[in-house]
């Protein structure tokens, strides 16, 4: 099969991979189909739930019906005697045979003790917290016996919102903590008071965000199989982070890592949900070891809606000079992060403040953030990871100051965007923006989005019946999170092997939740060796055969796992080149690897098949290949040079190495009578540096946009007065469906990252915050003068109707 010439994948400033130096870029930049695509369309992919073997015990979990209480007596006798039931476990049982779950950030960072057990041992902290596990031979029997478990509760006062959590002398969400404040951050740059005094115009506002959840189509599932004779545990699960999960299990079970194998089969989406730290990960492992039988937990959709996130309030103020330059921005953030569990979801609240003032060059910045714990379910990771709310608040602030200045908000953006030559650029939080080219991206967007046409349609619409709104928004998405001291340590590792027949194997610590990074990694490794992506097999999600790393979070897979694979592949390539040089009587530096052959650069007739050079190494280890290091296997870890964990002169670290951005435009229509919002048109320009596979990047970006539109308009977790999740099915937590969305038009811009060997930045998460922001700005625009009162996301009809009434009066 001939390898076609590289196609231009993207508009923008540079040829794909211009400086990458990995050889001929035959595959990077090409929109090739997914690896294993046939298996997907034939229905032959097995997800975790497909691997529950006959005879596996099933768990149903009895969950707290109260937001805050001490657990009294638990009577499991009736449940234990129910049909099919094998055992009923409580927190006391778990405590007798295991250790607490380690938290993803060190426990000493919390203001009080954090002994987290997979079944609540004493105090329950939210409605839905696991209290008892009913294990039965079938899921139906386990579920049926749940209601027979009797639990006595001693009620404690629940803390159900941030205001109550911060009220002096108010109730405590955890009885043994002295405060509800989990963490604070204070970010300062410049002289705020002076800037606000000197300002030509200032304006402030408040924006609050409802709770959201990731809701992947595949619910969570864990299958534990303890081999008692070998003292060995195998856990299959819906896991983004198999190595951190093994780390967690080793501590809970008191085992060595070598006694545990964690396998992450293909996942049906995660969007942050399936990071390490869910109680059921530990629970099934404990149950299997105690019962000496395989045990599976399969999450119900209702349970999946216990994953909470994002509820927060921002109070901000922005100042500009007479030329429209933003000279100051300040913001106070209060986030209600729910109960603290073993996972790191609450960390999202501490990412938000670090993103300001996003893509704008603002000399004076102050951000104060506080995260409080309450008796709502714990935050779980969700796409955006806190960056989305920062972008939305910044984009609202820009709109508001534009109104005060009497300028178009597009012009205000132009006057304040960081110019290309300003990079690398230090944000007030210490984050070091790697590169960007923002203003030309805005120009590119205006070519894609017919602004004048939409303004005309807006004028022509009868504003008492339908209102059209037009919005713009930038989105800056820090990617590749690397938090010091945590199990998000920020490096990834790949082992590359060239096998005797000349095929290549990459075992990497990054997992694939469905975005297709395995295909992208195969493309970049194929280019190193001049092979086809089909010649490269990617192995992921098995702690026995993949090296240690964080897994799949923060769009790190190609950026870190791919980079590690390229570093390893380059070293192997030099070994194969040494052998080929002997066979061809040439110097290694003269050799080019392309189309499955190794040829002398100046003399294409002198060549040897790649397979033959490899075979020679394997079969002539004492002669021709005597000087070539064996095995043909190299393991490399990639650490980004743009991560800095040593505090700078302001005491700040930089925990994200890569800063993809996008700029969005949307036109929406609000039905005045019903407050239903329809998205009429949507366009965006996205820049994630060098694009390895445009189809994969575009697909994920469109998915992020769809999710952002949902988060702006329809998706909200609601809690009743007792703290119970009211929105527990897709009928009440409303995801976008196909007819709800317009076609999302997008273009690329390519500003390679100077810090990453391939020039790539994170892709996959990026775009979500921009979509939330652009819809918010479009709704405010539709409300005209009254748009300044927009102060709550999402815009469900009950919140939009009063705003519409205000706009009409």
């Amino acid at each position, binding site marked *: 099969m001939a390898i076609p010439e590289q196609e231009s994948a993207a508009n923008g400033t540079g040829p794909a991979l211009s400086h990458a130096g990995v050889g001929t870029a035959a595959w990077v930049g090409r929109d090739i189909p997914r690896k294993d695509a046939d298996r997907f369309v034939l*229905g032959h992919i097995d997800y975790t739930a497909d691997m529950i073997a006959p005879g596996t015990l099933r768990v149903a979990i009895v969950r707290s019906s109260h937001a805050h209480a001490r657990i009294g007596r638990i009577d499991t006798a009736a449940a234990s005697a129910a049909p099919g039931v094998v055992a009923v476990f409580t927190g006391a049982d778990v405590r007798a045979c295991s250790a607490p779950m380690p938290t993803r950030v060190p426990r000493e960072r919390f203001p009080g003790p954090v002994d987290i057990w997979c079944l609540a041992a004493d105090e329950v902290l939210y409605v839905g917290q696991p209290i008892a596990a009913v294990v039965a031979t079938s899921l139906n029997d386990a579920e049926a016996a749940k209601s027979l478990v009797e639990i006595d509760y001693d009620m404690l006062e629940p803390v159900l919102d941030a205001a109550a959590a911060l009220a002096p002398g108010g109730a405590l969400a955890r009885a043994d903590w002295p405060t509800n404040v989990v963490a604070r951050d204070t970010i300062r740059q410049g002289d705020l008071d002076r800037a606000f005094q000197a300002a030509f115009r200032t304006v402030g506002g408040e924006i609050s965000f409802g709770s959201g959840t990731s809701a992947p189509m595949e619910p969570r599932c864990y299958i534990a199989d303890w081999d008692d004779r070998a003292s060995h545990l195998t856990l299959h699960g819906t896991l983004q982070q198999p190595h951190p999960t093994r780390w967690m299990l080793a501590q809970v079970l008191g085992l060595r890592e070598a006694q545990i194998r964690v396998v992450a089969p293909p996942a049906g989406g995660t969007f942050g949900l399936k990071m390490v730290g869910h109680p059921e990960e530990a629970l099934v492992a404990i149950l299997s070891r105690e019962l000496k039988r395989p045990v599976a937990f399969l999450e119900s*959709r209702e349970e999946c809606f216990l994953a909470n996130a994002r509820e927060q309030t921002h109070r901000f103020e922005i100042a500009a000079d007479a030329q429209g330059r933003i000279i100051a921005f300040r913001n106070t953030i209060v986030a209600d992060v729910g109960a603290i569990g073993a996972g790191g979801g609450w960390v999202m609240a501490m990412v938000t403040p670090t993103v300001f003032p996003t893509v704008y060059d603002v000399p004076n910045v102050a951000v104060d953030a506080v995260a409080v714990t309450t008796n709502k379910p714990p935050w779980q990771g969700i796409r955006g990871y806190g960056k989305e709310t920062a972008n939305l608040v910044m984009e609202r602030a820009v709109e508001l100051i534009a109104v005060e200045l009497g300028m178009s908000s597009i012009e205000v953006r132009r006057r304040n965007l960081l110019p290309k030559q300003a990079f690398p650029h230090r944000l007030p939080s210490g984050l070091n923006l790697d590169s960007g080219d923002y203003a030309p991206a805005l120009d590119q967007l205006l070519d894609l989005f017919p602004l004048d046409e939409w303004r005309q349609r807006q004028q022509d619409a009868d504003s008492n019946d339908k209102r059209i709104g037009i919005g713009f928004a930038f989105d800056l998405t820090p990617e590749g999170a690397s938090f010091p001291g945590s199990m998000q340590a920020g490096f990834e590792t790949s082992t590359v092997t060239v096998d005797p027949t000349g095929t290549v194997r990459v075992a990497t610590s990054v997992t694939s939740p469905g975005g297709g990074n395995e295909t992208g990694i195969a493309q970049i490794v194929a280019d190193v060796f001049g092979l086809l992506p089909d010649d490269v097999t990617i192995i992921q999600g098995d702690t026995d055969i993949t090296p240690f790393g964080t897994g799949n979070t923060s769009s790190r897979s190609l950026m870190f796992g791919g980079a590690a694979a390229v570093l390893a592949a380059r070293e192997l390539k030099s070994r194969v080149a040494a052998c080929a040089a002997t066979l061809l009587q040439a110097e290694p530096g003269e050799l080019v690897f392309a189309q499955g052959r190794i040829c002398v650069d100046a003399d294409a007739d002198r060549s040897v098949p790649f397979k033959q050079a490899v075979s020679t190494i394997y079969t002539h280890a004492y002669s021709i290949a005597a000087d070539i290091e064996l095995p043909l296997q190299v393991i490399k870890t990639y650490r980004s040079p743009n991560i800095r964990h040593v505090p700078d002169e302001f005491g700040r670290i930089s925990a994200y190495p890569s800063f993809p951005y996008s700029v969005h435009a949307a036109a929406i229509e609000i039905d005045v009578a019903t407050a239903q919002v329809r998205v009429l048109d949507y366009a965006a320009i996205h820049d994630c540096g060098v694009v390895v596979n445009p189809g994969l990047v575009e697909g994920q970006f469109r998915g992020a946009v769809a999710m952002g539109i949902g988060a702006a308009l329809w998706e909200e977790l609601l809690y009743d007065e007792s703290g119970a999740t009211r929105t527990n099915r*897709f009928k009440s937590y409303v995801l976008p469906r196909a007819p709800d969305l317009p076609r999302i038009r997008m273009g690329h811009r390519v500003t390679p990252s100077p810090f990453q060997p391939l020039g790539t930045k994170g892709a996959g998460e990026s775009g979500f915050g921009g979509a939330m922001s652009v819809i918010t700005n479009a709704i405010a625009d539709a409300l005209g003068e009254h748009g300044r009162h927009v102060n709550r996301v999402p815009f469900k009809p009950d919140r939009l109707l009063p705003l519409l009434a205000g706009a009409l009066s």
Partner: protein
Amino acid sequence: MSRPSIDLALRLDHRDVVAHVDGRALLIEAIRDLGARSARIGCLTGDCGACTVLLDGQPVKSCLVLAAAADGREVVTLEGSASAIAETVRRAFIAKKGFQCGYCTSGMILVAIDLLEAFATPTEADIRSAISGNLCRCTGYDDIVSAIADAAEQLSAKAATRESPEIF
């Protein structure tokens, strides 16, 4: 101990199968236990469409059907779906990247096949309407819509080729 159980006989992906199942079982649970794993469980409330199968030729959400109600009937899942249209739709889903995680794909493809069997030239709105009962969280639907539109075009082109001798 009295758990209601029933004997179930049905034709599943062109094979006659019999099973002894819990009387409370849903069709999706029964067929997955019988090995038809390409039908996925996403919600069990009829909202997501991941469990879509053809029951006597009609697409149904198999979480909304009791297993007992399928006795004596024919069930086809994605794995059993084989026709020229099915093959064209599958190829189009690969070419247009009509899936990411793949969890909704079984339902999406079966619904697309059903649409194109009934209606050779759907508009984009028709396609979006046809898949409105199936949730996808990865793609934002554009690539799925493109895949189905692409399959429709290919099928129309093939049909035109076949018909052309009569036209001219």
